[in-house]
C-alpha cells in the first residue's frame, strides 16, 4: 500500500482507531500493529509476507538463543555468522543473484565459454533491504550485548514490521524502536498534532515537489532522441529534487504517522542540500542508512582510527556497499565510488568533521563563502545523481557528454506543464526548509495564531490534492 494511495486514506483512520481502542492491552495493541502492518505490506503482494515472517522469526529465535550464551563465545559467533548469512542470503538471492550471475556469464562469454545460466527472475520484495537491515541491527546489537534480547515475540514482530517505516525506512535500531513496543504508550495530543503536520509536509514533498519533478525529469531524460545538453542538465536538476522530495517526503510521512501511534522514529534527512561539503551531506542524507553502515561496517573495519591505506579501503568499502545496497547495477556502484572519491580528500586531510553545526546557525542568510560551499556540494551531489538516475554506465556517459558539449545545447520546446509547477514547488521547498533548517522537519515552525496555522494546512492540502500529476510510486521502494 502506498502512502499516497486512496486505500491508505481509509487504512490509517481504521488502524488509528483500533490501535487506541486497544490502548489498555499492550500485547493486543502490538498484535494489532503486526496484523495491520501485514495488511499494509501484503496489499502489494501477500506471498512475500512469508519472507518478513521468516526474517522476524529467525532474528527473534537468535535473540533467545543468545540470551543464555556466553558473550562473544565461539557458539555465539557462529550463530551471528549464520544469522548474517541467512539475512543477507535472502537479500542477495532476491536482489543480486540475477545481476551477478548475468555479469559472470558475460565475463565467461567474453573469455570464449558458453555458460548455461539459470536466472531467478523474481520480483524484488518491496522494502526487503530495509527490514533485513533492521533485523540485522537487532542481531548484532544482541551479540554485542548492547540490547537485551526480548522474549516477547509480538513486540519483536511489531518492531520489524511496523508499517510506517516497513518499506522505505527510516531503518530503525532495536535500541530505539524495540523498547517503545515493550512499554505502554499513551496518546499525546501535541505529538499527534505534530505528527499530522509532519505528514502533511511529507505529502507536499512527495506529491507536489517529487511527482511534478518526476514528470518533467522523465520527459527530459527518457527520450534518447533528444540529445540536448541543456535538457539533460535540467532533467538531472529536476531528478535531484525528485529523489530528495520523494525519499525525504516518505520519511516525513513515516515519522509523522508513527507519532500518531505514540512511536518516535529517528530523523532520516536534515536539509542535505544545504550541506557545505560532502561529509556534511552524508551526515544529512539518509541518516539511518549512513549511521547503520558507520556502526556495523565502517567502525568494525577500523573506521578512521587506522593507517591511511586502511582508511582509504574502509571509505571505499562503505561507499561501494552503500551504492550496491541501492540496487544491482554498476551505476549505483559508480555512484558510491564517486562519493568515496569526493569524501576521501576530506577524510585524509582531517576536514571531514569541519561542519557539524547548522549552516548560518545564528544568522538569517549564509555568508558568500558558505553559499559557495553549499553550491559546490550541491553541484557534486547533482553529478552523483546523474550516475544514479542512468540505467547503465553508457547512458550516464552519454548524458555527461551532452552536458559538457555546448554544441548539443538547443532550446527546449514542449516542456510539460509540470515543469513550471515543479520549479515553483522546489523554490517553496528550499525557502521553507531554509527558514526551518534548525528544526526537525520543513514546516515545524508555524505561526502561533490558529487561523494562520490552519491557513497553512489548507494551502498544503490544496496543493497536495490539486497539483499531484497522477500517482507516482516511491523511488526507494525498489531498493
Amino acid at each position, binding site marked *: 500500500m502506498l502512502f499516497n494511495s486512496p*486505500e491508505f486514506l481509509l487504512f490509517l483512520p481504521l488502524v488509528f482507531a483500533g490501535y487506541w481502542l486497544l490502548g489498555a492491552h499492550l500485547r493486543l495493541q502490538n498484535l494489532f500493529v503486526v496484523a495491520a502492518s501485514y495488511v499494509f505490506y501484503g496489499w502489494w503482494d501477500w506471498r512475500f509476507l512469508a519472507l518478513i515472517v521468516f526474517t522476524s522469526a529467525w532474528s527473534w529465535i537468535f535473540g533467545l538463543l543468545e540470551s543464555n550464551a556466553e558473550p562473544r563465545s565461539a557458539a555465539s559467533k557462529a550463530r551471528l555468522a549464520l544469522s548474517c548469512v541467512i539475512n543477507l542470503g535472502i537479500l542477495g538471492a532476491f536482489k543480486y543473484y540475477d545481476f551477478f550471475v548475468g555479469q559472470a556469464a558475460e565475463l565467461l562469454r567474453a573469455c570464449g565459454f558458453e555458460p548455461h545460466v539459470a536466472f531467478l527472475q523474481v520480483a524484488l520484495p518491496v522494502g526487503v533491504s530495509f527490514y533485513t537491515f533492521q533485523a540485522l541491527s537487532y542481531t548484532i546489537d544482541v551479540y554485542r550485548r548492547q540490547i537485551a534480547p526480548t522474549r516477547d515475540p509480538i513486540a519483536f514482530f511489531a518492531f520489524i514490521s511496523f508499517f510506517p517505516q516497513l518499506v522505505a525506512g527510516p531503518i530503525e535500531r532495536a535500541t530505539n524502536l524495540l523498547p517503545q513496543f515493550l512499554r505502554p504508550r499513551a496518546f499525546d*495530543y501535541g505529538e499527534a498534532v505534530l505528527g499530522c503536520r509532519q505528514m502533511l509536509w511529507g505529502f507536499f514533498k512527495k506529491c507536489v515537489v517529487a511527482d511534478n519533478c518526476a514528470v518533467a525529469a522523465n520527459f527530459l531524460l527518457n527520450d534518447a532522441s533528444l540529445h540536448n545538453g541543456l535538457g539533460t542538465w535540467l532533467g538531472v536538476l529536476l531528478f535531484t529534487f525528485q529523489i530528495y522530495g520523494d525519499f525525504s517526503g516518505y520519511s516525513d510521512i513515516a515519522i509523522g504517522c508513527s507519532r500518531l501511534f505514540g512511536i518516535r522514529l529517528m530523523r532520516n534527512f536534515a536539509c542535505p542540500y544545504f550541506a557545505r561539503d560532502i561529509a556534511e551531506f552524508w551526515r544529512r542524507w539518509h541518516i539511518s542508512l549512513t549511521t547503520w553502515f558507520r556502526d556495523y561496517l565502517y567502525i568494525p573495519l577500523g573506521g578512521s582510527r587506522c593507517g591511511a591505506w586502511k582508511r582509504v579501503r574502509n571509505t571505499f568499502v562503505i561507499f561501494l556497499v552503500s551504492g550496491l545496497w541501492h540496487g544491482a547495477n554498476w551505476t549505483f556502484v559508480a555512484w558510491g565510488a564517486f562519493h568515496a572519491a569526493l569524501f576521501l580528500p576530506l577524510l585524509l586531510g582531517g576536514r571531514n568533521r569541519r561542519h557539524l553545526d547548522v549552516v548560518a546557525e545564528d544568522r538569517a542568510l549564509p555568508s558568500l563563502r558558505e553559499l559557495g560551499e553549499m553550491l559546490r556540494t550541491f553541484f557534486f551531489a547533482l553529478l552523483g545523481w546523474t550516475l544514479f538516475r542512468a540505467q547503465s554506465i553508457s547512458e550516464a556517459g552519454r548524458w555527461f557528454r551532452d552536458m559538457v558539449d555546448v554544441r548539443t545545447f538547443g532550446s527546449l520546446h514542449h516542456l510539460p506543464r509540470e515543469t513550471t509547477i515543479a520549479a515553483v514547488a522546489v523554490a517553496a521547498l528550499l525557502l521553507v526548509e531554509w527558514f526551518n533548517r534548525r528544526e526537525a522537519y520543513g514546516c515545524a515552525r508555524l505561526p502561533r495564531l490558529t487561523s494562520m496555522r490552519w491557513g497553512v494546512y489548507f494551502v498544503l492540502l490544496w496543493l497536495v490534492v490539486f497539483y499531484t500529476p497522477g500517482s507516482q510510486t516511491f523511488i526507494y521502494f525498489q531498493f
Partner: protein
Amino acid sequence: MRRFLKRLILFAAIPTVIAVVWTAFVVVMEYRSYVGALTLAEGETMVVCGDSQTKDALDPAIIPGLRNFSTAATTCDQDAMRLKDVLAANPGKVRRVLIDVSPLKIGYDISRPVSELNAARVHTFIHFYHFKENRRPLGSVLSLWRDVVFKRKFNEFRKSILRGRRWKSSLVGGFDPSTGVGFVSRKLRKMARSDATDKAARVNSRPPATSDLPLLDILEEQVKLVRAAGAEPIITTMPLSGPLREAIDPARRAAFTREVEALARRLGVVYLNYLELDLPIECWHDGNHLNRDGAEVFSKRFLRDL
C-alpha cells in the same frame, strides 16, 4: 484524544463541506445542461455519437442535417448510452444515425485507464458504473472527482462567469476540429514515434482471429436501438493517419473490417469504412484527429458517399 479528534473532524469538515456543496452544484448544473443540449434544432435529422475522431471529422456545416454529438475519449458503450439519451429526447425526429466503430477502441472499451477519460472530460457523474471495471475503483473515483468536478469544472465555471456565458455541459460534444495546419508536421512526427506505437500496440496485442465480442455486441445493440426508434442506422469507421494505420498489424486491420462487414451484412446495414482512406499529412492534427482542412475534405467525401 477527544480534543484531537474534535480538531481533526473540524479540520476535515471544512474542505468536505466545500467539496460536497460544489459537487452537488456541478452535478445539478451538468445534468440540466446535458438534458437541454440533447434536443435537436429544426432541420437536424441525422445524428452521430462517437469519440474525438468523429468529433473532429464530420462537419455539420458541410453535411446538411447532421448534429455531431461526439465527445473526446468516449468508449463504445458510452457512445451507445449517449445515443440512447439523444433518441429519447427527440422522439420521431431522427431519420439517420451514424454509428461509429473504430479499431482503436478494440481491447480498451471498458478497461482503459480512467485518468485518460478524466483528462478528456467525458461522461462522468452519470455513468459511474464504468469504474467498477477498473482495478482501483476508489482511486478512480477520487481522481475523477479531483480532475473533472473540481479542477476542470471550476475553471469552466470561472471562465463562464467572466464571459457571462451559461453553464455548458461537457457531457455533450459537437463538431470541434483541433488546431491548425502549422503545427502538424512536428507534432505528427512525434506522434508517429510514440503515441502511434502505443495505440497500435494496444490493438495489435489482440490475436487477429479473435472477435472483439463486447465491441460487436454493443454495435449490434446500437443498430437495434436505432431501428426501434424508427431511424436508419449506418455504421461508419473514421480514417486514421498513415503512421498510425501502418503501425496497426495489417492482419488485425483486415480482421476488424471483415468482422464489422459481416455484422453489417447480417443486420442489413450500410457500412461506410474509411479505415484505409489515405488522406494527406496536412489534413491531420495528430495521428488520428483531422484538423479543420482535413474535416472539410473528409466531410465532402463522406457526404458524396452518403
